[in-house]
């Protein structure tokens, strides 16, 4: 049961600095027809809301806002639902404070 207030995560990510590595996604979702429970959990658990459901009901990832926490790896790598790496050196999120 979720009692969430509407939160715009995009606004939060807007505070951050990123060095995007175009065309090199460091996380990939395994192609599927119906999402597994793990993939569904990622829709809510990812703190940057990188995972989203597309119109035909599959889970997709956009890594641009990723803050590299590793939560999705802990939930979804063992089952093979996702492949997870760090971005290339120097790319990704650049924390000013951390």
């Amino acid at each position: 049961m979720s009692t969430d207030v509407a939160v715009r995560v995009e606004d939060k990510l807007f505070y951050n600095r990123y060095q995007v590595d175009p065309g090199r996604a460091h996380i990939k979702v395994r192609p599927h027809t119906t999402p597994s429970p793990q993939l569904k959990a990622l829709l809510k658990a990812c703190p940057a809301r990188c995972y989203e459901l597309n119109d035909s009901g599959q889970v997709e990832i956009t890594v641009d806002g990723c803050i590299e926490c590793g939560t999705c790896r802990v939930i979804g790598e063992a089952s093979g639902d996702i492949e997870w790496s760090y971005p290339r050196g120097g790319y990704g999120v650049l924390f000013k404070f951390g």
Partner: protein
Amino acid sequence: MIEERFDAIVVGAGMAGNAAALTMAQRGMKVLQLERGEYSGSKNVQGAILYADMLEKLIPDFREEAPLERHLVEQRFWMLDDKSHVGLHYKSDDFNEEKPNRYTIIRAQFDKWFSSKVKEAGAIVLCETTVTELAQDAYGKVIGVRTDRRDGEIHADVVVLAEGVNGLLGTRAGLRERPKPENVALAVKEMHFLPRETIEARFNLKGDEGAVIEAAGTISRGMTGMGFIYSNKECISLGIGCLVSDFQKTGETPYGLLENFKKHPSVAPLIEGSEVKEYSAHLIPEGGYNAIPELCGDGWVVVGDAAQLNNAIHREGSNLAMTSGRIAAEAIFQVKSRRDPMTKQNLALYKKMLEESFVIKDLKKYKDMPALLHNQSQNFFLTYPQLVSKAMQNFVRVDGTPKKEKESSTLRSFVSARSWTGLFGDAFRFARAWR
């Protein structure tokens, strides 16, 4: 390919990696340190409380130049229900000492400074370099690393894995398992900027004094978790974290919890009017003693969060990271000085020295706590905070009800929520896990 061979390669320039690289470089070893961030600290997130003692052992005069925020004179613990907090506050002028014991820091800035000390000591520090794999020989001995920068391998006698909580390389090489959802917490954090005077007025501080608040209760909605509010010079660090397994189970969102925490009537006035400048997230190892993996093997040791060395009960991690990094480096130096090979058997000296330090002793003390809090999270983080708030309100509200009736009504609410056996059981289990 880097042709030269190093005495040691350190993966990661966080608290553990910097401590290890510094210690080995100070002893004249040839050290290469690799960090994936733009600079040391650009990927790192912490509350952040720095414990002086462990840093002093590495850099005795750090107070003269390290970027420190405030020295802590006050610790507050809050138990929250939706509208109230019951607090235990400890503030003492004793903490205004010549060499204060705890400081708040900002990790990105602190790590950058720490890294400059590592370089001064003579280590080669390569940033913007992600290590992709450990290089192993036919027998499984770790002989170096591969990176995304150059083709080929870089070789060293020993690799110090200071890669943080995710510990990707160790998992990939089969040295340890990936962290389990019930053994790591996901924390989200924001940096709220306010004028210095405003922070000092709101927290009742003077000069560089600082205060920190740890908060638990209904803010985690029955999940095992905690919030924190730390005062820095010109900003407030505010965040909340809960076990990943609980997020997975409940479908709560981390940013939803954060927003609710910020709106709590005890919290909102502290950050009112602030400008948020960053939103970050990071995992925290919470599995404790029972989650510690193998600490060394042929050609490698693992230190800090990557080895799950984190005391979640006391919110200590950076000090365990620094200490394990230093001890590993000292053990490696001893093995090297004897001209012995970096085998698992010889590197077990690190394990032995760590067991004799506070790091393993403290984690052992609380070994049953993670499981207890996890299994009883509804009671400890939802039911009890609500009951305690009700009891306090009953105690302070003056409405003509005789005190005797008030007391028995408070008692009844505890017993009906948890039953006598439940109450005694929880108290007993908690006391035993604390012992």
